[in-house]
């Protein structure tokens, strides 16, 4: 036996024949497997079970314009496939197209085209394990029912098939989904067949078969395929990492540069019998080019009164001044609803953009009393120090950082919801 000679020898891979109805020349790509042909020229149905091709039904209709003309070859996942058959099918809600792919060394595959995109299907030799209903288990993955018991009609047939495909053929189908994989169970008469589907991006299909490079969801205008992976998690994770890193850096910088300096504190006694009193606190050193000086005022003032505090931050050498004000108050009384009270017992104030220097804080307290006031002097603690961060600024910074993260999260949730919207189970949860 001359093994090497036979190894180099190639035999023709197509069987040429003339359509018995229209005479058009056809090429059978899967000779020996193909049992049924619908002529590309006239739409007539041919029986190819026996070597002698028989006419089943004569038709005279122009072939549909296909996105992948039959006979086109394309490479997906490293294997070259020829598109040899085409079906248009529908259930009660929508219609889609299915291409039968063939490679003599790798068998058959499916390409399903819906409004949402493409799916590549592999017929299964192993049956998924349905012992744990409503789940199906296959190769370690748990598949959940997505759509059950859809009735599918075949509306249009073109090309060659390994079974009798015909217009009006009915099948029952159930889809199960696990992540980016879909198991489809189809029952046609006595035959039960299982297909494992995976989503193929438009860009990949364009490269393989020259189909239009459409935009993906949401530009498709249709809900994503049940097993189409959300495109957002990767960016979501990346942006989250970036946001958290910068948030941490920002926090570290703010804390470090705004590290509180030495605290200066005095307890003052506000005398309500004097129109105003003054105190001086210091020195407060601002070491950096620009800094913050925080002033905390705390104390309980007299009933039904308020005390205005005017602060002046005065540079001890240049006399340069920055002014600010705060107030403490306490009111109470009785009305139709009963007793009420309202009081402000502490106030924090920040001088921002304070130039470097050594400062004194001058404080002027002006009490004001209303009727019902009683008492004379009340204690207030004043504390001042350089440093402290503006929480509002930091929050704004965080908001900017996390806006893309929130946006992506929103998109992701929207994608998942849309993907789920076509499911039977969409109403349950």
């Amino acid at each position: 036996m001359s093994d090497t000679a036979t190894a180099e020898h190639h035999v023709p891979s197509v069987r040429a024949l003339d359509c018995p109805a229209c005479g058009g020349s056809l090429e059978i790509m899967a000779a020996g497997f193909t049992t049924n042909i619908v002529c590309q020229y006239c739409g007539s149905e041919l029986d190819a079970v026996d070597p002698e091709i028989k006419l089943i039904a004569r038709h005279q209709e122009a072939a549909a314009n296909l996105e992948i003309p039959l006979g086109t070859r394309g490479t997906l996942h490293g294997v070259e496939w020829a598109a040899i058959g085409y079906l248009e099918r529908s259930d009660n809600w929508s219609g889609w197209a299915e291409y039968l792919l063939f490679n003599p060394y790798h068998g058959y595959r499916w390409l399903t085209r819906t409004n949402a995109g493409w799916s590549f299907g592999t017929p299964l030799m192993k049956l998924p394990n349905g012992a744990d209903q409503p789940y199906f288990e296959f190769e370690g993955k748990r598949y959940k029912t997505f759509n059950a018991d859809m009735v599918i009609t075949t509306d249009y047939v073109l090309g060659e098939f390994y079974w009798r495909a015909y217009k009006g053929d009915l099948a029952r189908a159930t889809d199960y989904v696990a992540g980016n994989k879909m198991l489809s169970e189809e029952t046609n008469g006595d035959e039960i067949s299982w297909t494992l589907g995976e989503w193929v991006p438009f860009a990949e299909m364009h490269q393989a078969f020259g189909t239009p490079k459409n935009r993906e969801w949401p530009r498709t205008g249709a809900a994503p395929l049940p097993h189409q992976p959300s495109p957002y998690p990767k960016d979501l994770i990346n942006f989250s990492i970036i946001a958290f890193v910068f948030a941490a850096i920002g926090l570290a910088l703010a804390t470090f540069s705004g590290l509180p300096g030495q605290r200066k504190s005095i307890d003052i006694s506000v005398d309500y019998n004097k129109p105003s009193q003054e105190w001086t606190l210091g020195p407060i050193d601002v070491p950096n080019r620009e800094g913050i000086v925080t002033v905390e005022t705390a104390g309980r003032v007299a009933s039904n009164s308020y005390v205005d505090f005017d602060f002046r931050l005065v540079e001890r050498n240049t006399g340069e001044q920055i002014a600010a004000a705060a107030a403490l108050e306490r009111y109470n009384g009785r009305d139709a609803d009963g007793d009420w009270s309202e009081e402000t017992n502490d106030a924090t104030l920040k001088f921002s953009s304070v130039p470097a220097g050594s400062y004194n804080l001058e404080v002027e307290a002006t009490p004001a009393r209303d009727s019902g006031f009683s008492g004379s002097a009340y204690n207030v603690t004043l504390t001042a120090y350089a440093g402290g961060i503006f929480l509002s600024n930091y929050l704004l910074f965080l908001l900017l950082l996390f806006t893309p993260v929130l946006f992506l999260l929103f998109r992701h949730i929207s994608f998942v919801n849309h993907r789920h919207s076509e499911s039977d189970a969409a109403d349950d949860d």
Partner: protein
Amino acid sequence: MDLHCPNCGAPVQFPYTGLSMQVCGSCRTLLRLDGAAIQAVGQCATLPFDVSIFQIGTTLNIALGNGRHVRGNLVGRVRWGWDQGSWNEWLLYLPDGTIRWIAEESGMYMVMQGQRARQAQDAACRAMLEHGRSALGHAFMFNDTTYYLSDIKTVRCVSSEGALDEPVSTGYTIQSIDFRNASGGSLTYQMEDDGGYFYEGYYAQLSELDPKNLRGLDGWAKPDFTALADKKQAGRR
């Protein structure tokens, strides 16, 4: 000893111990070697053209079930047909003289080993044949495995070639039941002239069979499974 076809006189050989049938390469008469005598026992039609990737001389590596593998030779083939299609079954001859059948259908490969059916099992299968298609989905225990009936059909030999163990030539017709189990296993029952036979087997990917000397087909690249195996290994690392 030179042997010749009693029909056309062409030289014939019976090189495989245990395989007493041979289709004459010239006139396609099915011949049986009986001692030193050659008898014509059937006639085989010309095999219709197909794009089978196997040919006589292709070798396949199959699992023996005990973790070991053995490489055998494809030395014969039967093409079976039914009312909705046809497929090839190739006879794989192993070095120890035993055989397996490799069914080739829609790009799937089933490695099968035959054995005579015991009486009770034979009776059960005959009953299922009586029920016809209403028995679809029925469970059936075989060798401690639960199988489910997936197809019942009458199959007819379209033609044969090469060396065979039984006289199967064009027109030979039998009833057959196909079972499948959840883990990719298959079981076929055939009611043959001398009783029932079971063919138990498993579905295999072509790559798992590590084929050599596949048939070349114009315009198609033969798969390179060594590259595939390397890739799998690399992926595992």
